[in-house]
């Protein structure tokens, strides 16, 4: 198992992470090592085993369709790095 630089580049792009060349090499080596070790789980037989997500039996519940707002619009935008009125401002998308 080898995570090559092309894969690192692809993963970094998917994850939207700018990774410098030096770190990319390091990540490549480390992820190769980690995943090689972790691959030991592939030896286990899991035929017909349903994947487990929530580890405890918890009763499913849904909420009633009621409106409740505890914050003002201003509070929702108070942390925005940049805004225009009550809208969030980002680079041109198209």
């Amino acid at each position, binding site marked *: 198992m080898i995570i090559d630089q092309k894969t690192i580049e692809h993963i970094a792009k998917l994850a939207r992470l700018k990774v410098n060349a030096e770190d990319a090499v390091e990540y490549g080596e480390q992820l190769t090592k980690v995943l090689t070790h972790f691959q030991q789980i592939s030896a286990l037989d899991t035929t017909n085993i349903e994947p487990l*997500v929530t580890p405890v039996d918890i009763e*499913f519940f*849904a909420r009633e369709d009621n409106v409740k707002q505890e914050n003002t619009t201003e509070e*929702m935008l108070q942390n925005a790095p940049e805004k*225009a009125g009550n*809208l*969030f401002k*980002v680079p041109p*998308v*198209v």
Partner: protein
Amino acid sequence: MSSNLENKNIYRGYEAVIGIEVHVQLKTKSKIFSTDPTKFDAADNENTTPVSVGMPGTLPVLNKLAIEYSIKAGLALGCKIRNKSVFARKNYFYPDLPKGYQISQYDKPICEHGEVTIVVDKVPKKISITRAHMEEDAGKSTHFGDYTLVNYNRAGVPLLEIVSGPDMSSPQEAAEYGRTIRQIVLYLGVCDGNLEEGSLRCDCNVSVRKVGVKTLGTKVELKNLNSFRFIEKAVEYEIDRQIDEIEAGKKIIQETRLYDPDKNRTFAMRTKEDAQDYRYFPDPDLLPILINEEHVEEIRKKLPELPFAKATRFQSSLGLSEYDSAILTSEKELADYFEVVSELSGNAKLSANWITSDLIRELNSNKVEITNSPIKPEELAKLIKLIDSGSISGKIAKTVFTEMWSTQKTADLIIKEKSLSQVSDTSVIEKMIDDVLATNPSQVEEYRSGKTKVFGFFVGAAMKASKGQANPDLVNQILKKKLDQQ
């Protein structure tokens, strides 16, 4: 018959294969996973909470009504309802997606394996429903060249994405499928069906192949189709465009194209170099939705009769024409109105005629919803009864109807006030006189053999038959004419 139909859907030796994804906005007060309102006309970012803006640490909690509505829609579309369905995260980055993932359903959608019947040119056709899954809507980005502004009012609005099989083969079928889905969700009351506000959004997957070829061609996704007319036009354009490309020896590129209604053409969206890798995985913040069989049956029992079934019933047991049935079932409220009138008046056909012509004309020209009609169905039924019993003629009835519409008075009152039944209705009088003559053949013989003083007897009988309401002059005139006529 069937070859005829196929011929109709062949375009320069090609046939089209069309599948449609409809995003139906579920008509809940609050969002699917949070308690902010869904109202359409809100100020910028007014419909937000920390959950819908994806603030750190916030978690989704599912809206019960969204589940109910999804089950309802699923059942109406003939789907199986999964007793355990799972929310999954669809991961991608976009400014209108506050969490960096959309909560949707992936391999375990709530509804699967259904079908719906559409009717194009009087021919019913079954369109399969592959699946219908719940998901949250994204926010809205508005582009200004140098920057983009983001509004999360829509983020988290509940959607049911209904995915059809690739079963449609013409632009008309595609548009009709859209109309049918809209009609169904409106009947169920799970969506307001408002296309301009985006409550119902259709994406069409279109491909073409040479007639006889069994494999599917490369499909193109058409987006931004916010009317059924546009669906028809865009698909039509796209089929043509694809055939042109192939005929010119070019390959169809799998891409997303937007329809521009002003230019009536589709154009490619900027393509991304990489195919998207959404990295779906079950959302650990939400437990699987568990739905038991009894609950599904409970909902099924409460389902209203759906448009296609209703129209079929109107034809088969009420004897209405296909045309009238289709019109009357186009909206549930209209069908309900009709059924009240029909039942109270006892004349389904006459009720259908009056509603599909006079009433709908007034509703449309005055922009009034059927539920707000100034003429209540009970009153229209009374009018129809009067016509049916011959108390007034159809012609008089039109006058009465117009008066009912503008004054909201009852038919009886209008007739009385305007003495309508007495004076004017020659056809009614004629009919009565015909009856009188028919039941008294010997007196007719007498008169015609010269004993004209028997005329007075006829006048009396006719006046009696009309309960004194008939205009005596008219009775005299008509009686004389009929008796002298031989």
